[in-house]
């Protein structure tokens, strides 16, 4: 993909922007979660993408609720 500028990987840039935008609203990286579960919790159930989304959404505003703290 680095067609125009040497060292500029557009696909990587786009995926970082996407990850950044999702994390801004409290949605972490699903693939990293799956990789982590496979690596360290073999055998325990892994949430699907949709379950992960709902879990993160609930936890951002849920009990404690501090995750959604934002400045004035």
């Amino acid at each position, binding site marked *: 993909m680095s067609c125009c500028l040497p060292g500029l990987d557009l696909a990587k840039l786009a995926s970082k922007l996407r990850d950044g935008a999702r994390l801004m609203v409290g949605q972490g990286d699903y693939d990293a979660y799956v990789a982590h579960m496979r690596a360290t919790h073999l055998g325990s159930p892994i949430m699907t993408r*949709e379950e992960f989304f*709902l879990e993160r959404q609930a936890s951002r505003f849920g009990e404690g609720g501090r995750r959604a703290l934002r400045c004035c």
Partner: protein
Amino acid sequence: MPASFLREKTSLAAFGWGAIFAISFFALYTLATARGEPVNAMWLVTAAIGIYAIGYRFYSRFIADAVLRLDASRRTPAHRRNDGLDYVPTDKWVLFGHHFAAIAGAGPLVGPVLAAQMGYLPGTLWLLTGVIFAGAVQDFLVLVISTRRDGRSLGDLIKTEMGHIPGVIAMVGILSIMIILLAVLALVVVKALADSPWGSFTVFATLPIAVFMGVYGRYIRPGRIGEMSIIGFVLLLASIAFGRNVAESATLAPLFTYKGETLAFMLIGYGFVASVLPVWLLLAPRDYLSTFLKIGTILSLALGIFVVWPDLKMPAVSRFVDGTGPAFAGSVFPFLFITIACGAVSGFHALVSSGTTPKMIADESQTRFIGYGAMLMESFVAIMALIAASVLEPGVYFAMNSAPAIIGATPETAAAAISSWGFAVTPETLAGVAQDVGEKSILSRTGGAPTLAVGMAHILSKVIGGSAAMSFWYHFAILFEALFILTTIDAGTRVARFMIQDFVGTFVPAFRNTQAWGPNLAATAVAVTGWGYFLYQGVIDPLGGINTLWPLFGIANQMLAAMALTLCTVVLFRMKRERYAFVAIIPTAWLYICTMTAGLEKIFHSDPKIGFLAHARKFAAAADTGQLLAPAKTLDQMHRIVFNDHVDAGLCAIYIVLVLSILGFAFSSIRQARACEAVTTRESEDELLPAGA
């Protein structure tokens, strides 16, 4: 590498930084010595960026290397406790975005707009020095301290480093600042929407839009944030465009025209309902919209300023440095430093820096970029807000930011009053601006948001659409501010509710159950009543309310920063790094000086515009002789105003007692730390090492 090459590279770098120094200070000099004619905003942008670069390169590096000795090889909580959910090692650019989105809100936009009444220079100087030596330092230090202690929260850190009682004091402080924050933000929305059918319609339209997005994201296409946000955004733009028809329609306009009091009650009811509804229905989807809109608008404003190169019409220093200004009362010291909180230093950031961010730091050395760097960016947002307020004709600025009690209710009285202050303006200009932005009147639209919106419309319409698009951009800016303030109100009410449940739960354990409807509704009611009380009081205030509430909020926010920086000082002593403790002590001392002076003046100052007690005495004396002072229409209301003044004075007194007691505990912790030869603070690395892994 040959030594000569290295020397050459070093001298080249030295030359480069020398040039940046020279350019920044020349830009500041140009800004400071401007007399009479308008200065281009690019001087302000140049000075700011140059000073941020210098501060980042030299001061934050000094803190990282010498003070904290950051170590990239040290394991962070994201690695040690990786759970794939909250604790995840995250790319530093992605995390920067997350952290910035969490610290940037309405604060850095409103404060500088109010401060512009003193001219652009005092605000600029405080924003730049404040962020380099106080704000960014606080965010950075707290982030590192929390990262080294498993990402614990500020209240927890104060508890473990200073003791149980200071921990409880900090929690009470955090809860009270939340309440005042929510009240003042709600007031900003009320002031922006009062008597504005266009604005009210678009903001109301966000409710069904968000609910649709929520249903879409839960049942139709689960988890597709991008899709639902784009749909939501398109619907939002449509609602802004249709808002004009509403405002111009004889049948629809009255349905969306509200007085401040009505809007206040609507917001209070809304806050209650929104914070007990399931989050996926309203809160989460609106959070997506407002977050992306916020980032997008900040970027477009930056782009607009870079393309348009607007002139600053506000003088460098206005006559209102003497404290007689209409937007807020009180002289430069201490009130400028209270008015501009976020953007220079904000205690609220200490909560974010000890919240989600430290749990995702992949490597300790990145805390400098994320903690210090994101705060520099927030400060730049504040600089842009200052620019947007200063590109307006000063006469227009003052017409928007003065209460009707001062300038009257018609363009004629306003123009006469403002011209008599030395800012020449005609009634036609004031009426013309109102017409350009599609409102009946722009007079007394206090609270900062409308001023910022006119300024942004002024800049952005020069990029897209020309003057015909002014009204669209104005309502776009109002919507953008209202949207993220409303999101803060529901999320904040929920946080306050959990804090109250937690607090009462220490005495009545059953109250902690967040699933039970009883405690849930009761705690929400307490939270909403808390901020609703101050909101209503602000709405009926003859001086516009912002006058009273913004300083209270500023004092609370800066006191929280003082507490956070006090914690940082204590930790540096306990780390045996007291040689370098001055990086935390200097901003702590300055914040104590400012907040103590401002707090005492707010209580005891003899001018009723500044001192709560003087104001109470004035109204009580009048009430005793049966006389009515505006806005009171009955003796009963006179007594209520006196009562409110005492509540405000009491709140200020509580803040002062809280922050002074934290100072007392800090001194005793520091004495203990100095008495001990060894390091007394506990970082999680040494706690967890024996466990292996």
